[in-house]
């Protein structure tokens, strides 16, 4: 029983006008504890795939099962709660709420889950320590570098105790030092806590760190290797 399973996923943008076939039948299984990179040239469908797995977009056909739940069966509000409780998101940039401090950004999602204040406080600090940014806990995002912001975003993604984290090009805006640091943190969380990470990237240095590499080309999986 896989954590994530996609069955014959297709996605066609603008089917009526200028159809763009972003995904053309993607079958994929991802197990708990994976550290998987989705790679491929620009326009190959990486973002589309991650968004559909994350329930942010709907496939044109096919199914997404997460822990056996067919997410297409969920109502809009159920899906929002499902994302909140089961999926951690890290986007390319501007993940954080600008008016909240780093700590508040991490606590925020637990507030949405209505977790008790004491737990929120303790876990937020714990996670900020884990991503090495505890000393900036009370600082707002604009005072953090891009790398620091992405680390806070990882902390936030983990705060809700999700089943897995989806990260679409999380290092795209980072320099090599910040990239390495973010990956170290993600890899450690994967190894020590068994957190599942699925991320897309163009960056060879990031690809090298992955334990499984899924190559997409023109909306199809052309390679799936575990080096």
């Amino acid at each position, binding site marked *: 029983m896989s954590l994530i399973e996609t069955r014959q996923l297709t996605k066609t943008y603008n089917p009526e006008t200028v159809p763009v076939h972003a995904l053309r039948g993607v079958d994929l299984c991802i197990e708990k504890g994976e550290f998987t990179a989705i790679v491929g040239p620009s326009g190959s469908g990486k973002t589309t795939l991650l968004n559909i797995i994350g329930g942010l977009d709907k496939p044109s056909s096919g199914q997404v099962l997460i822990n056996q739940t067919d997410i297409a069966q969920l109502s809009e509000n159920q899906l*929002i709660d499902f994302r909140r409780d089961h999926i951690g998101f890290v986007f390319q940039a501007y993940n954080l709420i600008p008016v909240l401090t780093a700590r508040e950004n991490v606590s*925020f999602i637990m507030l*949405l889950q209505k977790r008790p204040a004491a737990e929120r406080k303790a876990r937020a600090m714990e996670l900020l320590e884990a991503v090495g940014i505890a000393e900036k806990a009370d600082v707002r995002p604009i005072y953090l570098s891009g790398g620091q912001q992405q680390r806070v975003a990882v902390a936030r993604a983990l705060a809700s105790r999700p089943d897995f984290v989806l990260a679409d090009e999380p290092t795209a805006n980072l320099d090599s030092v910040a990239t390495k640091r973010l990956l170290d943190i993600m890899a450690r969380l994967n190894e020590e806590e068994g957190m599942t990470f699925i991320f897309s990237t163009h960056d060879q240095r990031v690809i090298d760190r992955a334990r499984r590499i899924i190559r997409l080309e023109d909306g199809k999986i052309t390679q799936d290797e575990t080096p």
Partner: protein
Amino acid sequence: MKKQKRTTEPPFLPLLAWRNIWRNKRRTLITLLSVFMAVLLSSLMISIQQGAWNAMIANLLNTYTGYIQIHRKGYNDNPSVNLSFQASQELIRKIESHPKVQIALPRLESFALASTENLSRGVLVLGINPEAENAITNLTARISKGKYFAEGEKSALLSDSLAAHLQLQPGDTIVLLSQGYHGMSAAGKYSIAGLVHFPSPDINRNLVLLPLKTAQEFYGTGNRITSLALFLDSDSDVEKTAKTLQNQVDTSQYEVLSWTQTMPELVQARDVDTAGAILMLAVLYVIVSFGIFGTLIMMVRERIYEMGVLIAIGMKRYLLGIMFWLEITFIGLLGAILGMIASFPVVYYFHQHPINMTQLSSDATAIYERFGFEPIFPASMDPNIFVQQALFIFLITSIMALYPFWTLKKLKVMEAMKS
């Protein structure tokens, strides 16, 4: 900070909203200022408008008509000395026993032609009980020339602009001609004891006062009167008092009418004037609303991406909607409260230093005088006025704040995050 409560709604929304409105300080301040000015201006405008009417009506009621009048039934529709009546001691006692009634003054009122050697003019003749009348309306204080009169004297008091028109001075005589009780002809010659100034220009141009007995002789009514003018404690509810009194007198013989019934044209003029003021306010509020709405649209537009992220990570749309609602309502409420607070001293100033229209515009003065009141406006200090303006702004902002809900309902997460 408040203790964390176990509520279904996360309490962080107000905090988030509060911080969000200060993201663009300048825009928030401009919006605040526009709400502030709207509340200030409208409070001031309404205060002055209401204050003017209140002052004018109070003047008229306290110095002349009284709050409630009791007549012989039918008199109000067809005023004539023929519809005069004898006010029994019992009737007066009954009326004055009402806790709100200070006094019921007997009066005999009708029209006459006043003439001198060269001039003549239609006037209103009012027979009054000199002592009792003075005790309540303080007529002696308004004697501008000459002196007051006493019961039984064959002398008259003239309102001063009438005296000026007829070119009369205290000591001169005036001849009155009229139709008396049941068609008798009435004629009399009276020496002028003094001139009286009335705040209502309309009255000031027309009134001749006679001692009651003298007037009764003139009209040949015996000891009849045409009205009992009731003066009430200033805080009383006039209409309610009129109702209670109605139940106490024999309504087959008498009519009990509040000033709104005896002077419906005054009520109408006030309503027309108020409607005009409200229309102006409406225009002001429409302008302000556009300003607020513009701010709101910008607030929503520039945060589409952020909304996308928040919905993506698991925040329900309605929570975001509440957040925007709080933001715009905070601005509206803050502006309204500040406007309210600032209104007090400004309105208080105009309460203490009434606007004197005679110094501003002679046209306006003429118009106001035609309605029969002095063009001097002390602002009303009624706190309801301020609260109403603030509530109105709150209402407008609350309604407009529904716009983000609509935007959020349509928002597609993927598209939002592309922006």
